[in-house]
């Protein structure tokens, strides 16, 4: 085999293998859609499960996931953006900053089930919130922090340096500069990061297992100190714990979860990609 032939062969193999990896992603999504779409209806989305969960809808679980995601945003966004502003605008190149960065990398790497243990130990037991929306929301919020911090920092850093220089030279203080020159330009990127983080949080099961998720609870929660059903856990329950569960409802539930998460990711991804490219203004 000549060198040219081996080049051609390698290129062909690499292309084929890449296709084998990438095509199933589309296939997975279409597959869930194909099997689940017939279950979707207004009633499915709003009604509680009935008859030992083998009939009815996913209303309480869907609402629970929306509430939890909302709470996650309330926890992760201010905290994460503040930390990102610190890293991008104030932090010097010193040991403390390196420690903060190491902490963020590690927060991103801690397994989700360990976050669940942490939430159980701190929010459910130590603070005495019990198994509740607030405990689950705080756990998910902390888990989402590293994504929010890193993407927000990226967004803030992508604002050109001369915006700051000009503002400061006109006599603005550092915070005025950040507030009026940097943050407005970084805002789309920051929101993207938050949305991306929320997409992850909405689909997570392990952190809510012991902190908030109820096996079956047809009533809607009345306060943030109540338990709630949540969509990812509900999917786990009906797939593995309920005998005789109609497949259509299982696929329907998976599809709704997938649609929530994908729509959040789809909103976020293009903005993020274009932001990276735009680093040079």
């Amino acid at each position: 085999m000549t060198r040219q032939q081996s080049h051609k062969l390698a290129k062909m193999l690499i292309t084929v293998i890449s296709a084998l990896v990438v095509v199933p992603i589309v296939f997975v999504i279409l597959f869930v859609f194909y099997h689940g779409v017939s279950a979707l209806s207004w009633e499915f989305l709003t009604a509680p499960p009935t008859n030992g969960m083998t009939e009815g809808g996913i209303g309480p679980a869907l609402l629970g996931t929306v509430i939890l995601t909302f709470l996650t945003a309330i926890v992760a966004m201010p905290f994460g953006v503040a930390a990102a502003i610190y890293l991008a605008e104030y932090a010097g190149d010193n040991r403390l900053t390196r420690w903060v960065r190491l902490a963020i990398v590690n927060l991103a790497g801690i397994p989700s089930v360990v976050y669940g243990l942490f939430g159980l130990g701190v929010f459910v037991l130590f603070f005495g919130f019990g198994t509740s929306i607030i405990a689950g929301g705080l756990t998910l919020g902390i888990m989402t922090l590293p994504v929010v911090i890193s993407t927000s920092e990226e967004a803030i850093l992508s604002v050109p340096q001369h915006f700051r220089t000009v503002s400061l030279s006109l006599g603005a203080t550092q915070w005025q500069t950040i507030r009026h020159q940097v943050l407005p330009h970084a805002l789309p990127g920051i929101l993207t990061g938050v949305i991306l983080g929320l997409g992850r949080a909405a689909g997570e099961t392990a952190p809510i297992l012991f902190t908030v998720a109820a096996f079956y609870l047809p009533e809607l929660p009345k306060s943030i100190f109540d338990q709630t059903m949540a969509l990812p856990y509900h999917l786990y329950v009906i797939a593995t714990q309920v005998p005789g569960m109609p497949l259509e409802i299982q696929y329907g539930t998976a599809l709704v979860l997938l649609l929530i998460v994908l729509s959040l990711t789809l909103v976020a991804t293009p903005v993020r990609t274009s932001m990276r490219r735009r680093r040079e203004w």
Partner: protein
Amino acid sequence: MTTANQAGPQHQARRRWGEWLIENTVRLAGVSTILIVALIFLFLLKEGIPTFLDIPLRQLFSGRWYPIESLYGILPLLVGSLLVTIGAVIIAVPLGLTVAIYLGEFAPSWLREFLKPLIEILAGIPSIVLGFLGWVVLAPLIQNLGASTGLTAFTGSLILAYMALPTIISISEDALYAVPKEYRDGALAIGATEWQTIWRVVLPAARSGLVIAVMLGVGRAIGETMAVLMVTGNAANIPKLGAGMFFQPVRTMTATIAAEMGEVAQGSLHYSTLFGIGIILFLITFAINSVASRVVGVQGSRRRGGQL
């Protein structure tokens, strides 16, 4: 004139105080991340330390996990996690590297622009959805291939490999991209084909980055919970050594925590042991991420949303 002079210093003082307040608020938020990592570890220790004090080490690392009879040998769980993770890495690393090479070297730019977001979408698919598909589609398929059950370490490895791919692809791609252009130009100039350049020059030069990609793939796989819980069969046995061991049901550390925490009495030894397993998981991922971030450096973590 006088009023302006009087207002000036006051205004300035208030401004300086505001600046001070904001700087320290955001600093506090930043430094809190260190505090959170410490808190997570402390609370795991607080609940989990009886594991290491009350269970003799010999029993803890023995082969029987049978909490009903107070047998807390975590060896089967360690082996389970190890098997599933090794399987996932064996599958995901060559595939991920191949896709990274394709994206970096061969893909036309329009396709690249389409594929990269697609891979980010894969990263976003919830593990429970992939676990569900593994449960209803993949496991029966594997059983039809002749295994006694479809719920095996291998089934878990397949799903985990798929979940680890986005991490491995993006980090490998960065590693390849970081190889100086002069290296390629030099190789091509002396008459090497594109493939020879990649194989003999670019890949060796990107070696350390590729090692990191593998490490973080391991970190991602070992911490995965729901998908593994659904498809690995959850039998706390140590499979016999041999090629067949991937095709037996196993139970991982993460799955054990997820499956059993709901039914234990708080404060019991069983409860503590689940936290003890959490400590082990924390330490493993902490080590992996700390070493990796040292090598990749700050730049890398910044670019990838903290996910490295």
